[in-house]
């Protein structure tokens, strides 16, 4: 589009390609006035890091879900009308089943490529959820959700929630034995909701379970409603990412005021295009080689039967585990049933997870009082408390998730089913605490190591004898690139007790009341860190691509003490306070 405007003057090697390009470019620009903005777009710089690919995997899986899903809609019949099967798959000949199940058999056995599309669709759904989870974990541990990216964090959580629902509903469509049992469990959970539960269930299923309505209803939600929402939210997500520019990992010359990387055109476009092909290729190969959801083996839904050892898709495993772990508490009061044994495990863990995740950026901002924009990611070790919380949550989730497959585990390790559940009941409480403590220690240990490296340089492993007979290990100076990474911490938030919430140095009255005390206490925990050696204060980071000499200062520096606060302060003033924060706030 921009070729007309950008072609170096006179360099008119007017080949036919150039002519066509110039023609189209002119045609469009005459109508859209887009040359300048498009050029800016093409030149947009994208930082690179392998973890930045996780979100792309999710995006491409979603696109593949749209493509394969549309193919499936051409053949799938979302109907619960009962019929007797006389199709290609002879083992189910004469079996009563729903039209939905029969059409799924038809897709698998009579439509060429149908089984492939079904399997790609299912694998892509799993990959989509796995990639979203990994992406969220990356965002969390690197602090990429911090100001100004809280909105995208919230959109991400919504995407995750919608993805779970979308997967659950899609998985229910084929109306096989497993998915029918899944719906039955859904109904059981809904019935447990106080006051409105039975009504919701009757409205959802169009009467008593299973009824005739649920598959067509889930179908339209699955192919239109949720994909529409997902598409809109993903668009907003990407737009915000574009507008705010991607975060970058700490490194030489990377600051909160720049983006270092390669331009969208042609580099990022080519890389991301390649990546789309990778994702599609991997999914196609998986679907060729690894069977997923062979519904013909499960048979059609049958309210009378249930097969043992059945597992939901992995992203539902945590719910399943929570339902298994939770004790069988239930009250009968005033003629009503409070089914805690269903309600709590079904609603509380996921509710806590999503609400906690949604509130965390704001909570952290309140605790640290850090109002600055952050564009350079944290190294997880440098935010020891956050990392410890993250690992604790993952442990908590992981234990419930494993318990969701406790029958498989019990079988595999030859322990009693009940023992696995008993262990999980304790582990789900104690595990996160241990994980928190351990992670925090490890992070602080790594910080200490970094500080030592900055101070003394790298250990080379070469031992040298001094003239006086003393042995010393030679230390190599830290290369500038690495130094920049190790020093990235100069932008970490300050402990509040150092003075106040703002620059004035006057203690903030808001910190005195009980809430203020709580905030100070939390603040001490969250900002706990091993100080950087003094002398690094004028962080290479803060000044951008900086001062080569700076490095020498640090190696002769004295005790790595609380004095490091100064270094933090330095970084803070440098990076944060000059951005207009308060003005215009109304």
């Amino acid at each position, binding site marked *: 589009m921009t070729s007309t405007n*950008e072609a170096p003057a006179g360099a008119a090697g007017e080949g036919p390609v150039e002519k066509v390009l110039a023609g189209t470019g002119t*045609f469009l620009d005459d109508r859209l006035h887009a040359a300048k903005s498009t050029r800016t777009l093409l030149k947009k710089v994208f930082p690179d890091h392998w973890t930045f690919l996780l979100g792309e995997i999710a995006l491409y899986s979603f696109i593949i879900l749209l493509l394969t899903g549309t193919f499936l809609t051409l053949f799938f019949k979302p109907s619960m009308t009962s019929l007797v099967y006389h199709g290609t798959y002879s083992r189910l000949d004469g079996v009563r089943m729903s039209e939905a199940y029969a059409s799924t058999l038809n897709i698998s056995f*009579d439509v060429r490529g149908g089984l492939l599309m079904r399997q790609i669709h299912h694998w892509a759904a799993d990959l989509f959820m796995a990639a979203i989870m990994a992406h969220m974990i990356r965002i969390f541990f690197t602090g990429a959700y911090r100001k100004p990216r809280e909105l995208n964090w919230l959109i991400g959580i919504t995407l995750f929630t919608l993805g779970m629902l979308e997967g659950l509903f899609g998985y229910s469509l084929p109306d096989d034995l497993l998915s029918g049992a899944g719906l039955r469990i859904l109904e059981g959970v809904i019935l447990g909701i106080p006051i409105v539960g039975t009504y919701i269930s009757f409205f959802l299923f169009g009467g008593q379970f299973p009824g005739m309505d649920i598959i067509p209803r889930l179908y339209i939600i699955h192919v239109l409603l949720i994909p529409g929402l997902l598409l809109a939210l993903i668009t907003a997500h990407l737009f915000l990412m574009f507008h705010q520019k991607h975060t970058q990992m700490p490194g030489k010359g990377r600051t909160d005021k720049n983006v270092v990387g390669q331009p969208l055109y042609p580099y990022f476009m080519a890389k991301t295009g390649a990546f789309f092909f990778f994702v599609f290729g991997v999914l196609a190969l998986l679907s060729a080689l690894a069977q997923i959801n062979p519904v013909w083996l499960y048979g059609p839904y049958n309210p009378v039967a249930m097969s043992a050892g059945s597992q939901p898709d992995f992203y539902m495993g945590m719910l399943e585990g929570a339902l298994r772990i939770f004790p069988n508490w239930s009250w009968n009061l005033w003629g009503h049933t409070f089914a805690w044994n269903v309600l709590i495990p079904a609603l509380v863990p996921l509710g806590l997870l999503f609400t906690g995740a949604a509130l965390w950026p704001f909570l952290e901002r309140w605790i640290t009082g850090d109002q600055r924009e952050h564009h350079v990611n944290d190294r997880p070790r440098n935010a020891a408390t956050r990392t410890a919380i993250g690992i604790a949550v993952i442990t908590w989730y992981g234990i419930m998730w494993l318990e969701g497959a406790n029958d498989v585990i019990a079988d595999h390790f030859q322990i009693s089913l009940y023992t696995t559940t008993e262990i999980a009941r304790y582990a789900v409480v104690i595990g996160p605490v241990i994980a928190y403590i351990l992670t925090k220690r490890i992070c602080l240990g790594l910080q200490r190591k970094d500080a030592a490296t900055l101070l003394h340089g790298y250990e080379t492993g070469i031992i040298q004898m001094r003239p006086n007979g003393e042995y010393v290990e030679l230390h190599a100076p830290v290369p500038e690139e690495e130094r920049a990474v190790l020093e990235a911490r100069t932008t970490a938030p300050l402990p509040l007790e150092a003075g106040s919430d703002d620059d004035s140095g006057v203690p903030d009255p808001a910190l005195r009341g009980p809430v203020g005390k709580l905030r100070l206490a939390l603040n001490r925990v969250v900002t706990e860190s091993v100080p950087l050696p003094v002398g690094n204060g004028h962080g290479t980071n803060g000044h951008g691509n900086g001062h080569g000499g700076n490095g020498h200062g640090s190696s002769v520096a004295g005790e790595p003490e609380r004095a490091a606060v100064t270094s933090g302060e330095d970084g803070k003033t440098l990076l944060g306070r000059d951005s207009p924060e308060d003005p215009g706030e109304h």
Partner: protein
Amino acid sequence: MSSTEGYTGDFPPGGGPDGGEAEASRAPHRVIGTPPPAEQRTLLGTSESDAPPAPPRELPADPDDLAGASRAEKIVAALFILAMLAGFGFIAAYIGLPLGASLDSVLRSNLALGISMGVAFMAMGVGAVIWVRRLMPDVELTEARKPLASPPEDREAFAETFREGAETSQFVKRPILRRSLIAATVPLLLAPLVLLRDLGPLPGTKLRHTVWRKGLRLVISDTGRPIRPADFGSPGGMITVIPEGYQTNDNALVKATAIIIKFEPGELKYPTNLKWTVDNIVAYSKICTHVGCPVALYEQTTHHILCPCHQSTFDATKGATVLFGPANRPLPQLPMGVDSEGYLVALSDFKVPVGPSFWERG
């Protein structure tokens, strides 16, 4: 940067937002949709005195290692040709491997289609990555980031515009207008909810009852055969039974499905209701009282009934009371007797609601 200049130059004569005259005099006449002649660009780019010189190029034209690049070019081309072949292979597999009546033919077709498709995409992907890495010169650019917050003037101006608009609209000043508008929206928000009412019937007491009634025979779920106590040789496994005549009624079966188990004399104990058993045969609901899975597993040695979903375990000898797991209530026992022909029949419906807890259950 200089694209603004380039841009105005491209306006068709007289088409500029303003100063069309000046443009027209500079730019030769040109039909919309055709590229401007080369001289025009030359004019715009360099010789015009007020136009800055063309910016220096920001991206190098070629990578440093040209020899390596041409090797890479061959590899990439080979990969792209592989992708093409695999793509044709996909079409060939589609046409050449029809789906027969056997599962094998389906799996063979799936394998061929999937692998050819996968190889095609992977080859494209790998090729493109090598292309970027080896053929495009390595660059690292730095782009400045501006603070996201607007300057205070802009915020103030926005606030002013907003205030002005609110004032001009009279929305703030005229409470009657404002309140009546809000009042008008209330029913409009409720209406869609009301519209959902016909999604399903009201629950009523439907969850309290099943189709079992006095005299209804228990039949084996697979075969539909009625059962005589004498058909049981010795105590043994668990048999799934359903009410006669409801074999194809899923809505009924979801609640009414039951299991029968025969015991040695004396094995059945309190709180099993022995009056509802026949010849040491007891019938329980098969619907788990946790969230409603069919309790499908039975361990003969321990007499444990196990729900495969969340492993609630019920003691079949003691009125199916809960031994372990998340279920809170025993599996309801079906009052059972025999009819005049000696077949097992229900004496009534279950005395308590079967299946998962619900609010009105009490």
